[in-house]
Structures are given as C-alpha cells and as structure tokens.
C-alpha cells in the first residue's frame, strides 16, 4: 500500500490495517461495499476474520483427518507423529485437570481450541502487508473498489474481538450447560447465591458470584484478543519504518521485524495453550458437584 497511495499517512496506514473487510445490512439492504461500512448495524460480518477462521478450522480438520488413514498400529511417521503428539499432549492436560468427572467432549474441544487458535495466531507471522495488498489489488482489479487502498483486509482472526469473544461465548454456554446438568438448576442457582456469605446476604453473594461467572468468558476472550492485537500492532509499527525513505531505518525495521517475529512465535503458542487450559479448567469447575 505504501507504494500505491501517494498521500500515505502513519495514522491512515495503521487504521487501514486495523479495519476489517465487512459485509452487512444497511438501510439499502445487504452490501459488502467498504464505503458503506459505517452505516451497518449489528447484523454485519467481518468476512476476512470469519473466512480465515473457517479456512484455518478446515485446515485443522484436514490436517488431522489426513493423519488418520495412515494411522496404523505400526510405528507412526510423518504427519501421524505430529497428530498423535498433539492429541496426547491435549489428552494429558485434560486428564490432569479433569480428575473426577469424565466428559468425552472435553478432549476434542481442547484439541480444536489448541490447534485452531494456534493456526489463527500463526497468521500473525505473515508479513503484515502481503495479504491485504493482494486482496486490495484483487478487489481493485475486479472493480469492487476504486483503488487497492480502499479495500480492507485483516488477516489474523484472533486480532478481532468478535472471533475471540465468539469462542469464549461458546465456552460460556457450555459452562452454564454443564453446571446445570451436573448440579441441577437448584444447585447452579445455589452456587450463584449461597456463598461466600451464606443465605442472609443473597444479593451480595449473587453480585460477587455473577461477576465471577461473567468474568470467565470475558477474560478468556479478551486475553487472547489483547495479546494478539498488541502483537499485530507492533508488527504494523515496525512495518511503518519501511515507509520512510531511509535505508538505515528500513534495515533496522527488517531486523526488528525478525526479532519480534521470533519472540512472537512464543506468544502465539502460549496464548493458544492458555486458551485451551482455561477452557478445560472452567469446564472442570462446572463439573464439580461437591458443596463448598
């Protein structure tokens, strides 16, 4: 983009990178026109985030399904090694957290979360301008926008709070579902109202416990979003160094980019792992039936 638009500004560059490709409902009906984005209400979709998210989910399923036909009881090799390593790692984590209750869906869910979130995070390592520029040029070429710079395209799904909170919402629904299933509606309500202070301070208890409950999905979603958003932002800022017509600053930018990318690999994996562990822990808490 830096070369495309003559009057590029730092703010414009950053804003461009932080805006989603959005399709939504306006007064004139459904549209994907980026010029109409500010007229869309709740019923709009970040096509780029959702697209990449679903694509990477399919990559996950494909990768792990591909491992299966070759699966045999002989010594595993290649992709099967990787698949089995992931499954074993997840299974160990699940079994160490889920000690008493057993739930066959926790393992697959934890595996999905780990690999899927990791793949979505991994998109952060693609240099920030590549895919947006490509998408912008395609959009301009097909006549969707007047200039490549007018098309928005955000590549990393986990830098979109909708994506992370969407997954957290699913986890939250499961928390409530299993809480009620394991403890009964009465038990669940009792858990929300009868402690820490006993039955004479039910309103206070409820406020405390409700905040506790609601904090789970919000912290789960926002933690992932915050980490990835910050990481993406730093990539964008480093990329900005290449805009100035100075070889020294440009080289410094390349160096910084490499260093940050290397460091970021750790964050990507760590955040995927944390998301998985917290999902398991929250669901394990929902399964606990003992009285406090």
């Amino acid at each position, binding site marked *: 983009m830096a070369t495309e638009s003559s009057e590029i500004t730092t703010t414009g560059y950053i804003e461009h990178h932080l805006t989603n490709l959005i399709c939504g409902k306006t007064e004139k009906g459904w549209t994907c026109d980026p010029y109409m984005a500010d007229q869309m209400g709740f019923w709009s979709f970040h096509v780029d985030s959702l697209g990449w998210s679903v694509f990477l989910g399919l990559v996950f399923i494909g990768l792990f399904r591909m491992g299966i036909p070759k*699966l045999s009881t002989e010594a595993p090799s290649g992709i099967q090694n990787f698949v089995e390593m992931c499954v074993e790692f997840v299974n160990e984590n699940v079994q160490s957290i889920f000690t008493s209750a057993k739930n066959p869906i926790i393992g697959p*869910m934890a595996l999905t979360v780990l690999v899927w979130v990791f793949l979505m995070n991994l998109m952060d390592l693609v240099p920030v301008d590549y895919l947006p520029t490509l998408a912008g040029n395609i959009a301009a070429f097909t006549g969707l926008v007047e200039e490549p710079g007018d098309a928005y395209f955000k590549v990393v799904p986990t830098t979109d709070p909708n994506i992370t*909170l969407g997954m957290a919402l699913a986890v939250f629904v499961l928390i409530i579902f299993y809480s009620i299933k394991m403890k009964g509606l009465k038990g669940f309500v009792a858990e929300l109202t009868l402690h820490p202070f006993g039955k004479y301070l039910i309103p206070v208890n409820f406020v405390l416990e409700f905040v506790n409950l609601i904090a789970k999905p919000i912290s789960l979603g926002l933690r992932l979003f915050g980490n990835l958003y910050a990481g993406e932002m730093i990539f964008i800022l480093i990329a900005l160094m290449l805009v100035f017509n100075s070889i020294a600053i440009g080289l410094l930018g390349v160096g910084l980019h490499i260093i940050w990318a290397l460091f970021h690999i750790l964050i990507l994996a760590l955040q995927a792992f944390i998301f998985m562990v917290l999902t398991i822990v929250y669901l394990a808490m929902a399964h606990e039936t003992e009285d406090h």
Partner: protein
Amino acid sequence: MNINATLLGQTLAFVLFVAICWRYVWPPIIAIMEEREKRISDGLEAAKKANDSLEEAKLNYEAELDKAKSESADIVEKANQRASQIISEAKTKAEAEAEKIIASANKNLEAEINKTKEALRKDVSEIIVSTTEKILGDEISQEKHEKIISEAAQKI
C-alpha cells in the same frame, strides 16, 4: 473495535468444528493410540514370557543333557561289560573246544596204538607159529593152529 454478528458466526463455527473433531477426528486417533499402547504392553509381556520360557528351556536342556550323558556312560559301561563277558565266554568255549579236540586226538592216538599193538601181536604170533612149525617141521592142523595163535595172542 465493534462487536457485531461476526461473534455469533464464530460461535457457530466453533461449535461445528468441535463437533466435527469430536465425531470424526478424536475417536479414531485415540482408538489407534490405545490399540498401539496395548500392543506394546502385550509385546513387552510376551517378550518377558519368552525370556522366562527360554530360561526354563535352558534348564530343561541342561537336565536332559546331564541325563543323556549319564545314560550314555551307562550304556558304554554295559557295552564294555558285555564285551568282556563275550570275550571270556569265547575264551572258555575255545578252551573247552581245544580240550575236546586234544582229548579226541589222544583217543585216536591210543586206538591207533592199540590197533598197531594188535597187529604187531598178530604178526608176532604168526611169526612164532610159523617159526615153531618150521622148528617142529610138522604141520599142526589148521584148527589147532588157529587155537594156538589166538591163545598166544591172548597171552601176549
């Protein structure tokens, strides 16, 4: 950051992918892994068993070998005994045979001697008779002659 229907879309996608993973991905992998685990532990068990039976077989083999050795020693000893027995039997038999042969030879010899003696006696009596005849110059009857000869032969 604006929250919109993307959130619901992602929730749906999440549920779908978890369901797919739960239904189609997780079970076969876990099943295969458990199967392999079982096979490995079975294999180790079998190896241990095989080792045990090898030890046992070794012990058996040694015992059998010892037995065979002692048996063969017995057999050799018996064979030796039998051989010496056969030899001694043959010896006694040969000795008896030899004695028998010697005895019969002696007997033959004696008979021969007796025969010769008889013939000699007869010759001598004849010579005596003829000589006596000649001396007497007279011929004694044949009957008397015979009688005299046999008497003489008896006396000799």
